[in-house]
């Protein structure tokens, strides 16, 4: 299903300390990026709660959840919203371990790093919970940090649900349906295809370099090579743009973008939209009335 994009480490291009070469590391990262997109499309095609929704309804409802998350201030309600993302993921047959790992790696980890100093007396004075001198953890500091990390995790979770349960073509249809100009939608569609093409090109460049190298190379050599390859990609991008336009003209392009196929909402979509609105309102109501600041 997924092409052979995972590369095994080759001892010949490892440094004395066992580190992989720059070319290998970059090729692996690029391969992972391509594989992620293909896996997302595969996951979005499997039956599940979020996958069954009209993409417009899904987009609007997730946006409502993201806005509600930004408006909520109490930790229990934020935790509830975070658990809601997990419940939606489970109902959509999204692998929960991967979901949690992705949310944590993209948002939670950096959120925690950023929030950690705010938990200390250095930034937030208050009653000390863990005495560590100027870096003592204070009660209000811990609350501020926990609130930030939980909100970031919930926001990332809702965002990831859109990414993982919506095919790119459906997302474009939804954007088109909610009023985004056709020209922008067409550019987005073409960009995604070109990104995949350029990622493959750049991955192959790195693999080709990897296969020719007998050592990991010096920092100076590697930097020079990377910059030269970036310049090549820039030139190729500009040239490909002309080629793509020529191909469009050859196929009869007259300046108008064809509309994507129309979407149809079902009763279940309206039900979902109403339920989402009710859950958001409930979360805000509990936040304001049960846990006032």
């Amino acid at each position, binding site marked *: 299903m997924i092409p052979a994009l995972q590369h095994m480490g080759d001892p010949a291009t490892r440094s004395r300390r066992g580190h992989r070469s*720059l070319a290998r590391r970059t090729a692996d990262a690029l391969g992972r*990026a391509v594989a992620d997109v293909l896996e997302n499309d595969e996951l979005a095609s499997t039956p599940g709660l979020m996958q069954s929704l009209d993409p417009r309804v899904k987009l609007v409802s997730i946006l409502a959840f993201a806005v509600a998350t930004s408006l909520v201030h109490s930790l229990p309600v934020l935790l509830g919203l975070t658990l809601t993302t997990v419940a939606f993921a489970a109902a959509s047959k999204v692998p929960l371990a991967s979901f949690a790992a992705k949310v944590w790696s993209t948002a939670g980890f950096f959120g925690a790093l950023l929030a950690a100093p705010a938990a200390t007396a250095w930034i*937030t004075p208050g009653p000390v919970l863990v005495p560590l001198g100027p870096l003592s953890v204070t009660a209000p500091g811990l609350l501020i940090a926990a609130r930030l990390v939980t909100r970031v995790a919930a926001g990332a979770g809702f965002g990831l649900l859109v990414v993982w349960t919506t095919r790119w073509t459906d997302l474009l249809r939804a954007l088109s349906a909610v009023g985004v100009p056709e020209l922008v939608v067409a550019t987005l569609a073409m960009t995604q295809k070109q990104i995949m093409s350029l990622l493959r090109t750049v991955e192959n460049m790195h693999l080709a370099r990897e296969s020719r190298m007998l050592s990991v190379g010096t920092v100076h050599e590697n930097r020079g090579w*990377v910059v030269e390859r*970036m*310049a090549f990609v*820039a030139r190729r991008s500009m040239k490909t743009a002309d080629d793509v336009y020529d191909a469009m003209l050859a196929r009869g392009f007259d300046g108008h973008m064809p509309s994507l196929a129309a979407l149809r909402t079902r009763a279940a979509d309206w039900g979902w939209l109403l339920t989402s609105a009710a859950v958001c309102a409930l979360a805000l109501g509990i936040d304001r009335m049960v846990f006032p600041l």
Partner: protein
Amino acid sequence: MHIPDGYLGPQTYAVLDAALIPVWMIAGSKVKQALKAKQVPLMALAAAFSFVIMMFNVPVLGGSTGHAVGATLIAILLGPWAACISVSIALVIQALVFGDGGITAIGANVLNMAVIMPFVGYYVYRLASGDAPGHGRRIVASGIGAFLGIVTAAIAAGVEFGLQPLLAHTATGQPLYAPYPLSVAVPAMAIEHLLFFGPLEAAVTMGIVAVLAKQDSALVEMKPASKPLRWLWAGFAALVLLTPVGVLAPGTAWGEWGADELRRTLGFVPAGLEKVGGLWTAAVPDYAPAFIANPFVGYLVAAVLGSAAVIGVTWALGRLLSGKERTAPPTPPSGRQP
């Protein structure tokens, strides 16, 4: 620099998201005027390039790697408005396809990386490269533009973070979103970009411009100075003329106290500060030239002298680093716009 959801409150992200709609409309109109129907594949490829350039690992000191944003480079290749659209599209795809950067924070991310960075980078590049026909000075100018572009964008992100405790907090003053005040957030963002990401962005941009200048010089040629650059000079002159307003502000900027003020405030002057405080006597202390009695006129004259010195040194450095290249004037390419 990709801000996820949760760091910015609704007062900030709603304003930034709404403010970008007219910016995108103007950018679309400008690009359409210059590029006609070819805009779609060109914008798509530029956006794809913008995305991919962020995936190149560039080796830096100590065996670690970093990545460039490339917004200034794209502005140099395609013009700032086209760069604005291309980088915006790349950021939207990063958020919607790869989950990098928040949905509500798209406005802030676009403002920092697709508006501030390419525009500051491009106009600094134009200013620093002047009308020099050779490539040497332009290569240096591209580095200066890229450096200042990313540092300015980082400071903007720092301001957005630092405003949160002021805009949204509890009755007891606890911040509800990004928790650090301006005095922490701005220096934190500025310092890491001044010391690490700025030099990296500058080195990558200079390297690519140098390679392109050698292999396909039409891509990095430049049109003669156009209206926006003249407006930049006009804006600069207006700011210089407005500098005397600063005399109306009482007190000294925080952390810039002299020994006399410290003595008045604290009752003493720290020994170390007193020892090294008098090592250097400025030619024009307190922005007040000794030969001018009126403080407003003195402040204005100081602004003119200081600006002239900065422009002169930058111009001289550019000349020096460019090796005084003089070649035939370039032919403007057809695909770019100012």
